[in-house]
């Protein structure tokens, strides 16, 4: 009865570009005498590409054609063609996560269109995927421990605070191994603008361990602050990336620190400081000596590949198995979330209709209405909600996502109130936060695969 999905993850980072192919197994977990309950029961890594240096045209600008070549080559090696791919995620990460880069990559991959359900970027999702890909969420769920996962990459570190396997908050710092680069003659070729005011290193200067160490120390201190192991100074704010929003709030209690990303490989293994022509080995050494590694800490199941594995294996999830879908061509992409609160969903149909109408009319594109819904509601509640939502649509398609298990009942009740040809997708078991976006893929059995994203590229 198991169904298998082929999922591809592509991570285009500041430093490296990688691709993984994984197989997701979807199975009905309910007995054959009950309403079906589909779940992703296994996420198996089928193929990992080698780690490429991200092809760049000039500093910080991604070479789209180069990316395309990598993807073509790796598809051939993995023995898959675009038609085999059911889902997947492209993530453009770190310093490269700029709009023009994203466009470049998407344009270059347009020949593969349709196969990737998502094309996305953004530090929040990246932190989430890295934490999942490194096994930090599983570790937290199994042990019940609070975990702060740090994916320390080339340009940035993505942080995720995890409790009982749930990601509570994320943050992104300009802490990475390639904030400083030098050539074979040890001549410094690049100092990231993020380090302005924080170090005296200049391009052209000769790099020595002594010259690099203070920067590595400083960056490590910022990580200690984020982990609540050092008193917070303005340093943390200075290294906070703008896109990620707030400065990370350090956890109140001692947490297990978990590491992934390229620099994580330099924590337990000592490498020559010149190995990569960057700050990485020295940064890793400083982290090992720091307070971060004095309590319980763990290296991720995957380090440099954590984010891409997260993208390949963990970006997709399933909706509830009783959903309603009619007159809608899937996949749907980049639906912005419009929230209806638990108080608002109890309004009278007239009031709710007006509220939905005014919220939807503020959106330029079709949006998904996100509601908590009711736990095991009476049918009158379903009807009232269907009535209210239907009134507020004003001819727009009905895209609704609920937390509680009631989507199919709500969907069919709406179908009775909307024109026959009206598009309706009603999903449940999904909690969407404001500011996020939803992709909905083609059905897997009775369920629909979805991807929840936090930052979406302009159309």
């Amino acid at each position: 009865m198991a169904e298998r999905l082929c999922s591809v993850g592509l991570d285009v980072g500041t430093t490296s570009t990688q691709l993984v192919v994984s197989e997701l197994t979807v199975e009905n977990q309910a007995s054959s005498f009950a309403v079906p309950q589909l779940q992703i029961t296994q996420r198996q890594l089928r193929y990992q590409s080698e780690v490429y240096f991200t092809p760049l045209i000039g500093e910080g600008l991604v070479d789209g054609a180069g990316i395309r070549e990598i993807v073509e080559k790796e598809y051939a090696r993995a023995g898959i063609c675009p038609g085999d791919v059911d889902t997947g995620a492209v993530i453009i990460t770190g310093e490269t996560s700029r709009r023009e880069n994203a466009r470049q990559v998407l344009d270059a991959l347009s020949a593969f269109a349709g196969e990737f359900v998502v094309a996305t970027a953004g530090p929040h999702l990246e932190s989430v995927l890295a934490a999942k890909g490194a096994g930090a969420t599983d570790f937290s769920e199994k042990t019940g421990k609070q975990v702060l996962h740090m994916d320390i990459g080339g340009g940035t570190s993505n942080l995720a605070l995890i409790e009982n396997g749930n990601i509570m908050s994320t943050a992104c710092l300009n802490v990475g191994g390639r904030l400083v680069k030098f050539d074979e003659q040890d001549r410094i070729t690049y100092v990231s603008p993020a380090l302005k005011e924080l170090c005296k290193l200049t391009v052209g200067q000769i790099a020595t361990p002594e010259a690099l160490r203070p920067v590595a120390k400083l960056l490590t201190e910022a990580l200690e602050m984020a982990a609540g192991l050092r008193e917070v100074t303005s340093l943390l704010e200075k290294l906070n990336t703008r896109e990620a929003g707030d400065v990370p709030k350090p956890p109140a209690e001692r947490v297990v620190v978990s590491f992934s990303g390229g620099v994580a490989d330099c924590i337990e293994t000592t490498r020559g400081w010149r190995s990569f022509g960057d700050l990485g080995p020295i940064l890793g050494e400083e982290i090992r000596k720091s307070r971060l590694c004095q309590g319980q800490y763990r290296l991720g199941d995957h380090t440099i590949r954590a984010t891409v594995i997260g993208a390949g294996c963990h970006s997709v999830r399933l909706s509830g198995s009783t959903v309603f879908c009619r007159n809608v061509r899937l996949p749907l992409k980049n639906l912005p979330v419009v929230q209806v609160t638990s108080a608002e969903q109890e309004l009278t149909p007239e009031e709710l209709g007006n509220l939905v109408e005014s919220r939807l009319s503020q959106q330029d594109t079709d949006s998904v209405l996100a509601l908590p819904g009711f736990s095991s509601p009476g049918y009158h509640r379903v009807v009232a909600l269907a009535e209210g939502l239907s009134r507020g649509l004003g001819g727009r398609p009905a895209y609704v996502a609920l937390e509680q298990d009631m989507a199919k009942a709500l969907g069919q009740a709406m179908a009775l109130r909307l024109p026959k040809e009206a598009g309706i997708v009603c999903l449940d078991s999904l909690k969407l936060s404001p500011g996020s976006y939803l992709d909905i893929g083609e059905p897997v059995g009775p369920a629909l695969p979805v991807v929840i994203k936090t930052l979406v590229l302009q159309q």
Partner: protein
Amino acid sequence: MNKQELTAMVAEILGQMGLPEPMVKGSDYKPANPGPEQKENGFREGDFVPDVTALDLRKLYLQENAADKEGFARLKAKTPARLGSGRAGPRYKTLTMLRFRADHAAAQDAVFSQVSEDFGSKNDLIPLKTRCKDKEEYLTRPDLGRILDEESEKKLKSAVSAAPRVQIVVGDGLSSAAIQANAMDCMAAIRDGLKARGIDTGKAVFVRYCRVGAGDAVGDVTGCELVCVLVGERPGLVTDKSMSAYITYKPHTGVSESARTVVSNIHAQGTPAVEAGAHIAELIETILRKRVSGVGLHLEGAK
């Protein structure tokens, strides 16, 4: 020592122990000094004990001096099983014992209690009855629970003019509580779901002392293409309100049990009634299209 002296002595001893004086025969017992409030559980004498059935079993952890209380609580949240109950010597704790007996009593009550007299008329259902004359006979004679009594048969015949495609039957079965909690919400969702698919349902019926097979008898009378019986499941210790839907294509007395498609576990902690109803509506459409239910439908799906 005479009786009076004895009473006086007992009173004195009790007085020394700081306990209220013994009850004076024929008068209301009003202790002069109720004594300090018991801090341990917050009860005073004469208070009611708390409702043990109101406690969430998934959160109830009674083991003392646990090595990892939170860890166990996390696992326990996933199951209603009675785990982590601790013990008093070789026995259950009082709370565990009381809860077990309360749940068991609720399960028994669900079987023996009646769906209210006006349930059918209040919900616009045709009220019918099988040949069982009471609950006792219902429990001991499953065969009679599958046959409508004469009066019901007549009533149904006169109420149905044309054979409906889909006939919904609500039956008390082994849990009246399940039917009162779920049947009407579930049926409303089934009806709307069928209406949206252009499938008509006749007037629904309510059958007292109903076994699943009573749906076949209803099929005989109405000549419906498909019958959907919403019936109370045998209650367990987790819930006494679980309902099932048995869907049979071309129902008639003597139809094979393998021809039934069942959706079970319809209750607030299982599949919510309305969501189950929407699912059942879709299932009914599939069965009508494929003209087969039960095992045959599974085989059809595997083709």
